[in-house]
């Protein structure tokens, strides 16, 4: 039992970070907090993958005369692309939030749903008054 905890506690810390980001994405009402939660989730996943590439006693994956063993360079390559994609996604999400604020005047999820519901009700009442049988 103790060996399991000592060997794997770092994975559990990364999973804690992922779950903090996940909780921010689904439980907070402010749209910018959701974007920040997504960013925390993404960097925690990238941290998890990079930790699988480390080898005890290895050096950075740049060729060097005095090195005996190198780290695995493949997770670094894949996660570089992942960081770039996360920047692109964050930029587009922020642009959509700015447009939502211009339309509705608020950034809270509940208030936006209220305004939508009231608009749908008024549309329905207006239609019922004018319908001819």
């Amino acid at each position: 039992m103790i060996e399991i905890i000592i060997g794997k506690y770092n994975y559990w810390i990364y999973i804690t970070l992922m779950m903090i980001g996940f909780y921010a994405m689904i439980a907070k009402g402010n749209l910018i907090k959701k974007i920040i939660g997504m960013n925390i989730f993404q960097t925690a996943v990238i941290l998890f993958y990079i930790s699988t590439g480390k080898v005890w006693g290895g050096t950075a994956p740049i060729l060097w005369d005095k090195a005996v063993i190198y780290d695995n360079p493949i997770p670094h390559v894949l996660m570089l692309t992942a960081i770039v994609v996360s920047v692109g996604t964050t930029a587009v999400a922020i642009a959509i939030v700015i447009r939502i604020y211009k339309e509705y005047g608020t950034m809270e999820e509940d208030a936006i749903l209220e305004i939508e519901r009231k608009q749908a009700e008024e549309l329905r009442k207006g239609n019922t008054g004018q319908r001819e049988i």
Partner: protein
Amino acid sequence: MKDDIIIRVISNLLIPFIQLYALYVLAHGDLGPGGGFQGGVIFASSIILYVLVYGIDEGRKRSHQKITDVLNSIGVMIYGGIGVVCLFFGGYYLQYGKLPLGDLKHASHLGIYGIEIGVEVTVAAVMVTIFFEMAGRKND
């Protein structure tokens, strides 16, 4: 912020060195950490520093909208274009070994440099574009 003399003088001194550092990171991407993407982001941050100190209108005069719009796509075209040029010389798409620039080692090395230049141009232009679009006035 341009009335504050310390900020103005220091940023006037630093901005050329930041751009030079961005080109250094690009050029030494195969000898140490760095490469196209990191150099592009550092180059964009120098332009963002200029806009923060002098204002958006001054910044727009230095990086015209039409020029950054065109530079957005030139980087991707350089990347795809190198791949198509490799097709003309008998290799697969993006097989740099067949380019007529020397033996296999030198041709691959130069192909990698060309690709990194393409990535840097696109990344710098897109980061500057996104910043300018988002930094408008409040009642725009």
